[in-house]
């Protein structure tokens, strides 16, 4: 079910009431949380619970086997079982059609005309997130970073925990499973802060992403014609704001819901549009994925330990696969490739040139932040465009300041400019700060007024239960 739905409001109220019931044991509460998480997932498509179960059982068994295996070969073999099954599930549901289409295209280039059968497979929501999460568990045990969990209940809850099940943050087993071991002690303000974070997340999603920005992004990317550079840029900026508010909104809601239940999830975003450079950007954007890719792909590939050339290759492979993780389309691969290129160029410059004292000046740092934001926006074009012709049209209009169709009314121009400038201002101001510290320093009545107005804005915006963008990944 969607966070931005009436069903979730009722569901979460029931979950919260049961979870805080004084007459239930901790084990009973965990069993209830597990059942509730399955209900949360089944609310989309009940049969896909089977996929969750397979992923859970496979990695539960595999991790135990890896831990007790006495030979390297056996350990590798069991790890291979986990990788094959998890990636096989992911490949079948998410990449099957993509592989088939590309196979047909390659065959056609070789002169073999073949009509592929229709691939009418529904993508289980959140599959990219929970398969990565369970694989991390087996990989941690294989890499001897952690020991297997003691409790199947705790492990199942780790895989299925509903706040972050379908769109992250991708939680590490070592971060979440230990939290299930004992009932968290009561802590003043935790419920209220959790609920406030949920309000903030939903405000980002419903009011800013869906209400203000999405119509402009949809109009621009759906125009089907060459656009004036102003509109191409405004549409891209709108999408940059939309995807942040949509995805960070989901993460913030997930973090808030978990906190209200007494559990801590890691940050997934830290004001990424104030990033100075791309290494910094990836420390601030979708942190749980970037650290996952770093720890389970980039580092095992050799990271920066195998020479300069190999480092660049590892960077590029990691980012290309990171792009493909987002969706079965070459546009996502290009998006990942651009980020890989940015990171490689940044690394090259940093190695090649010693930092000049001027580079520490505020003006230089702000210029770098603006350049980073500019280049990130170029990548969003490939992320959002439905196909390459659309992406090329957009890029050409944006970089040549070309003339073309204008599709955004002055109302929509304003509804892009104001939120995007607001986002940039907030990210700039919050770059070195934490929300918790700001709230602690803010007068309590002001926090209350802000939270109250955000709830009211959610209500009067009448969100239409649009799915979160990252659900499709």
């Amino acid at each position, binding site marked *: *079910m*969607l966070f931005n*739905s*009436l069903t979730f409001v*009722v569901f979460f109220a029931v979950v919260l009431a049961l979870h805080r019931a004084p007459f239930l044991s901790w084990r009973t509460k965990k069993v209830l949380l597990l059942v509730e998480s399955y209900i949360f997932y089944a609310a*989309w498509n*009940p049969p896909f619970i089977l996929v969750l179960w397979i992923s859970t059982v496979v990695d539960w068994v595999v991790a135990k086997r890896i831990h007790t295996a006495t030979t390297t070969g056996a350990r590798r073999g069991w790890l291979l079982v986990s990788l094959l099954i998890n990636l096989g599930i992911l490949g079948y549901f998410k990449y099957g059609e993509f592989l088939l289409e590309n196979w047909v295209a390659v065959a056609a280039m070789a002169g073999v005309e073949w009509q592929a059968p229709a691939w009418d497979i529904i993508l289980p929501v959140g599959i990219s997130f929970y398969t990565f999460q369970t694989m991390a568990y087996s990989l*941690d045990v294989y890499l001897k970073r*952690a*020991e*297997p*969990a*003691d409790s199947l209940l705790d492990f199942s809850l780790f895989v299925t925990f509903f706040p972050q099940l379908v769109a992250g943050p991708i939680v590490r*087993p*070592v*971060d*979440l499973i*230990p*939290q299930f071991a004992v009932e968290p002690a009561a*802590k*003043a*303000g*935790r419920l*209220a*802060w959790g609920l406030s974070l949920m309000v903030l997340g939903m405000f980002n999603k419903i*009011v800013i992403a869906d*209400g*203000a920005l999405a*119509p402009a992004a949809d109009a621009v990317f759906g125009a089907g014609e060459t656009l*004036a550079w102003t509109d191409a840029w405004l549409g891209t900026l709108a999408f940059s704001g939309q995807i942040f508010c949509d995805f960070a909104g989901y993460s913030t809601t997930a973090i808030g819901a978990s906190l209200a239940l007494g559990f*801590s999830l*890691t940050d997934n975003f830290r004001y990424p549009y104030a990033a100075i450079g791309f290494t910094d950007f990836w420390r601030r954007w979708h942190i*749980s994925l970037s*650290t996952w890719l770093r*720890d389970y792909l980039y580092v095992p590939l050799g990271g920066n330990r195998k020479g300069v050339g190999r480092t660049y290759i590892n960077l590029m492979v990691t980012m290309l696969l990171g792009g493909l993780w987002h969706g079965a389309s070459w546009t996502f691969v290009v998006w990942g490739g651009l980020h890989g290129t940015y990171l490689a160029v940044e690394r090259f410059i940093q190695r090649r040139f010693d930092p000049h004292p001027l580079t520490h000046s505020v003006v230089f740092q702000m210029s770098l932040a603006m350049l980073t934001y500019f280049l990130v926006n170029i990548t969003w074009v490939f992320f959002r465009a439905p196909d390459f012709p659309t992406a090329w049209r957009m890029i050409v209009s944006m970089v040549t300041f070309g003339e073309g169709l*204008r*599709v*955004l*009314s*002055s*109302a*929509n*121009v*304003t509804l892009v400019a104001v939120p995007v400038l607001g986002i940039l201002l907030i990210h700039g101001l919050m770059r070195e700060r934490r929300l*918790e510290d700001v*709230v602690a320093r803010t007068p*309590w*009545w002001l*926090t*209350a*007024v802000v*939270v*109250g*107005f955000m709830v*009211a804005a959610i*209500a*009067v*915006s*009448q969100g239409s*239960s649009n799915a979160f963008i990252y659900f499709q990944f």
Partner: protein
Amino acid sequence: MRSSIFSSEPLRDIPQTRWTAVMVLAVMVCVSVVGAWEMYWRSEWFVPSYRNSDGLWALTRDRIDDEGGRGVAIVGSSRVLFDVNLESWREVTGTLPIQLALEGTNPRPYLTHIAQETTFSGLVVVGVTEGLFLSPSIGLRGSVVNAYRNRTPADRMSQWLSMHTVEPYVAFYDFDIALFAIVRRQPFWPARSGMTPELPVVRKLANSRVTRQTDMWNKVSDNPDYREVTRGIWLAFLNAPRPAPPPPEVQERHISSLLAEVTADVQAIRARGGDVVFVRAPSSGPFREAETKGFPRELLWDRLLAATGAVGVHFEDHADLQDFELPEWSHIRADQTDRFTRALLRHLRDAQEAGGRARAELR
């Protein structure tokens, strides 16, 4: 689970503040703002009503299966949606029609849906608004059937909750006054140079009931200022530049193909024991002028009846279907739909009986 690494800090800080006071004041602020918003819109003639949502359409569509594929189903555009009074129909025939008409939408895909994807064997009433019926596109509510097909258990639950806890009680829960809909339609936004003027968004015209009985909003019929707003929007549509019509042979191919598809659907329904009738509901003023000029009866209506062999009731053929007030030239005011529906039923029954195809649903 013992571990040697943590990906990040596992426990979150809680900001120290007066959280109980924050929650109490936040609720007070929220209730005050939302309450004031509700009162304002009630003062602007809004009343609680059911949203004409995809979910409500889907629940109505479910009746085809739940009621065994019998009865009366209505597909069409806004005219049969507004003008046919379902309660009056039930009073006369004992059957509550399944109202599946959708505003601004081509009814043909929905006729096809009933013909090809259901076992419906009752009477299908098809509302014909020529511009929409002839359109190659599905129109404003084209996503409804897919939304119906792809409903999740959560969608059903949210629809139920909305219809039982919000819609009957809250006036501001209306597409017309969603915050950003209001912001975007404000007159103070300047026209943007170099941009083709956008067509205005159609404003609220009706209130829906749980049966999808749709009544013209009394502000349209009784408030002269608002009526002028709605008329102005229609005039903008009627006067909007249109692409040049296709060459006659292209148009002829399109209509022939369209008639073949409709005929196939009609035959599929008849093969199951059902039947299809066509209704052209009244229009007036600039709408009627434009439709008479752009879509003469021989272009579609006459050929439609001839091709399908179906009964059709056109308002121009019956004096008692013309004597109605259409405040914005396209839909009958709510308090006259009872009279229209009873007259329409009489004509449908007479035409069916005259053609030797009397239907139990019309008795």
